[in-house]
């Protein structure tokens, strides 16, 4: 299976265009977007053959795995599972880009899927400070709450084989990962011990997006929240996990004064959640998960550095992410000093 970056993606997309839109169709404007080290995202368009019924241009997004995938150890789902999740979310009324095609061996792209490209902005800094979004910014926290309530009400797709994890399991998993890096970071150590003593009462687990944050949302300058991206970290767990994750300061992009994604307020997020049928979640539970979110992100940064230090990953991005641990430490101290 082609997983080594030697795949000629534009050439494979040209063949795929014929499969999607018929003989004479072409893939144009293929461009790799900035993305993670193990997952590639490409923007491209399919243009149908001239004078054909479907002769228009369709803007699409290809997601493909570029590094080997181990479903046992990985926190993420397969792209086939992500496709099933997108469909489940859409059925529940949550906005996600419509699935166009789940790739198979004939496509020569490895593990991959194609979705429609939704117009709008994903860059957190622009969403939070560009005047273009002034009109919708105040609605976003409430919309996020509403969309999360719909996702959490959706039946988990059986095909996705999602894992279940509550706060105790998540803390245990990340503490183990932290110990495995060999790092000695007093703030992270304190946070582990503190949060273990502050575990919230268990709640019935629900379908979670798993990475619901500013940066994975497409914001339309007129409609607000237009689509939720990147479903690969989806799992089953505490609804406050998703609500807390979007409040982690690392995704506030320069606006720590606006706790929800750097664009909104806690009250609006929670009101939107309850208004769309979500079981009300107290702020204190969100703040617990926000702290656990900062801690998880701190450990993830350490792990990404470790993957470079052990030679598993070669990108310049990886060691530099290791220098983001201190941002999670100051955020954790702010939370601990506030009593969470």
């Amino acid at each position, binding site marked *: 299976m082609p997983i080594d970056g030697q795949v000629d993606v534009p050439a494979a997309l040209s063949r795929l265009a014929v499969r999607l839109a018929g003989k004479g169709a072409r893939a144009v404007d293929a461009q790799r977007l900035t993305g993670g080290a193990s997952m590639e995202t490409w923007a491209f368009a399919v243009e149908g053959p001239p004078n054909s019924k479907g002769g228009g241009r369709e803007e699409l997004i290809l997601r493909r795995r570029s590094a080997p995938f181990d479903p046992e150890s990985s926190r993420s789902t397969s792209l086939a599972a992500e496709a099933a999740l997108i469909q489940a979310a859409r059925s529940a009324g949550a906005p996600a880009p419509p699935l166009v095609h789940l790739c198979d061996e004939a496509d020569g792209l490895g593990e991959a899927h194609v979705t429609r490209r939704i117009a709008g902005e994903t860059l957190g800094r622009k969403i939070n400070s560009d005047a273009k979004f002034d009109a919708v910014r105040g609605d976003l926290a409430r919309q996020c709450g509403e969309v999360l309530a719909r996702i959490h009400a959706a039946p988990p797709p059986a095909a996705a084989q999602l894992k279940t994890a509550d706060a105790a399991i998540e803390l245990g998993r990340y503490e183990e990962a932290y110990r495995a890096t060999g790092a000695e970071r007093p703030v992270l150590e304190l946070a582990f011990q503190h949060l273990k003593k502050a575990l919230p009462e268990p709640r019935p687990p629900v379908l979670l997006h798993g990475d619901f944050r500013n940066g994975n949302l497409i914001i339309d300058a007129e409609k607000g929240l237009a689509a939720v991206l990147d479903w690969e970290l989806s799992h089953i767990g505490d609804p406050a996990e998703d609500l807390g994750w979007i409040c982690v300061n690392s995704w506030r992009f320069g*606006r720590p004064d606006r706790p929800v994604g750097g664009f909104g307020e806690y009250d609006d997020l929670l009101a939107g959640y309850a208004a769309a049928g979500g079981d009300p979640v107290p702020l204190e539970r969100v703040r617990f998960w926000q702290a656990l979110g900062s801690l998880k992100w701190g450990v993830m940064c350490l792990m990404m550095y470790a993957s470079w230090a052990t030679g598993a990953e070669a990108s*310049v991005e990886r060691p530099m992410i290791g220098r*983001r641990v*201190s941002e999670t430490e100051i955020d954790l101290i702010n939370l601990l000093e506030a009593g969470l």
Partner: protein
Amino acid sequence: MITHPKPQELTEAVARWIDQIRPQLDPRNAFLARVAANALAAVTRELTLGEEAKAAAVQRLEPILGHGGTYEGLTWELCEKLRSGDLDAATPGLLPTLRANTLDQLAIDQPGYKHEGA
């Protein structure tokens, strides 16, 4: 007197060169080039601020642990005591000490990072 280039001057020279060539790169490499320039900027700050930050951290940790030592030794001991529960968030002086040490590290890693306590 100019004798030989200081480490800070070398990192700065390479960072400037990266900035020069960045506009000619494709989006993926332009992104990685920005990461590389950021890495050099962090190295430059660590060369300038690192020793002082470590010395200050040691001074702050001494009263918490009741004795002196190296930065690495005191950090190791602090982690052990937090893990065992001997020290916790209620320990007098602990959170202000961790805040000050973390802010010094953040000034090296990401001086522009905006957080709730800033």
